[in-house]
């Protein structure tokens, strides 16, 4: 090998910082790690805030309560996996797959909301308290999204996302869908206006937040 091939400046920079590094685990391992931390975080939050199951849980068929929650969790985890994949150079998620996955997450949330509303009216939407109820549900969704959001974004930005805003968008969407999946069996209200404004709204808000964090990270790292 001809050592002259390597410029001296580069050789100095590299040899001065050549500590062995541990390769990043595969995406599926990092996804499992995220699931474990998210599950732990959700258990802690549920216990700390004394969140309980929705009062009409018994009226909902199993497929609509636990079934839909499981389905949404699977979609949320898939989105998180895609965010973690996007964080590694050379394994970026194609734009079509990104759009399809995010659209599926939002569509499923709306569909579950509609079907739940058709099966059980839940707690009525009382005149004058809709805003307060809605705000409290949105905050609950955001709090429930925290463990997945933080874990995913930390793992994403510890790698090297070349499109950080896309990775953030996927991570935010995944965390939001996971939070909504959990809140589906907790929120006592089925009214479609409540679901579409306060629950779907949070999903879009967290998507935007993930995208924005990605943009900020990009500015700090690459500018």
């Amino acid at each position: 090998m001809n050592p002259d091939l390597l410029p001296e400046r580069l050789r100095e920079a590299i040899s001065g910082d050549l500590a062995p590094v541990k390769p990043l685990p595969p995406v599926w391992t990092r996804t499992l790690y995220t699931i474990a931390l998210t599950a732990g975080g959700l258990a802690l939050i549920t216990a700390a805030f004394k969140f309980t199951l929705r009062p009409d849980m018994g009226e909902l068929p199993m497929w609509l309560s636990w079934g839909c929650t499981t389905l949404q969790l699977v979609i949320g985890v898939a989105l998180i996996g895609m965010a973690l994949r996007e964080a590694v150079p050379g394994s970026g998620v194609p734009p079509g797959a990104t759009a399809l996955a995010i659209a599926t997450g939002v569509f499923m949330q709306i569909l579950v909301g509609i079907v739940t509303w058709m099966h059980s009216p839940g707690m009525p939407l009382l005149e004058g308290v809709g805003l307060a109820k809605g705000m409290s549900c949105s905050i609950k969704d955001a709090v429930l999204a925290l463990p997945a959001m933080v874990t995913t974004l930390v793992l994403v930005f510890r790698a090297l996302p070349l499109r950080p805003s896309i990775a953030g968008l996927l991570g935010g969407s995944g965390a939001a869908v996971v939070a909504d999946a959990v809140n589906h069996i907790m929120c006592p209200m089925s009214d479609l206006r409540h679901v579409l404004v306060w629950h779907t709204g949070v999903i879009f808000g967290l998507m935007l937040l993930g995208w924005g964090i990605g943009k900020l990270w990009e500015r700090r790292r690459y500018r």
Partner: protein
Amino acid sequence: MGVDRQAEEQRLIELMIGYQKGRMDDFEGLYAALKQPLLRYLWTFVRNATVAEDLLQDTFLQIHRARQTYTPPRPVRPWIYAITRHVALMHLRSGRRRKEMLANDQLPEIPVPPEMEKLADRATLHKMLAELPPHSQEVLMLHHLLGMSFEEVGQILGVAAGTAKVRSHRALKVLRERIVEREGGDS
């Protein structure tokens, strides 16, 4: 993928593993193996040999900072080319491009595979390639000149393999049309 290509990829994986373990020799081996193809790839973005040389060093510094993000035994080249592409795009965004383009516009020596030499002589091909839009040039460079599969090209560009294939076919079609136009004009 041919046997040579598999052997080359395997060698790159071994070098990358050694480099992650902290072996300078393996980093040098990686640099020696990838210097020329990466310079050619960088040239498609900046069209300036001196700037491409500078960006090559920036690329290897980025590779060094992100070396833990490579997971063996995944192919090394999509990982490295994706980082290279990003370094080039960041450079283009930085606004230093215009001055450099005016200062220097020489063409590096690019090896042309036989299937592309059928289209025209080497000098004409080089000239016509350089006149293509950067995104067309990039995909032709990666697939036809650097010999990457569409799957690898897709991984580097962050698109599906099918999309990479479509882009390559379109770019080749444009190249053929321009060569025919040129030949028509010459005669």
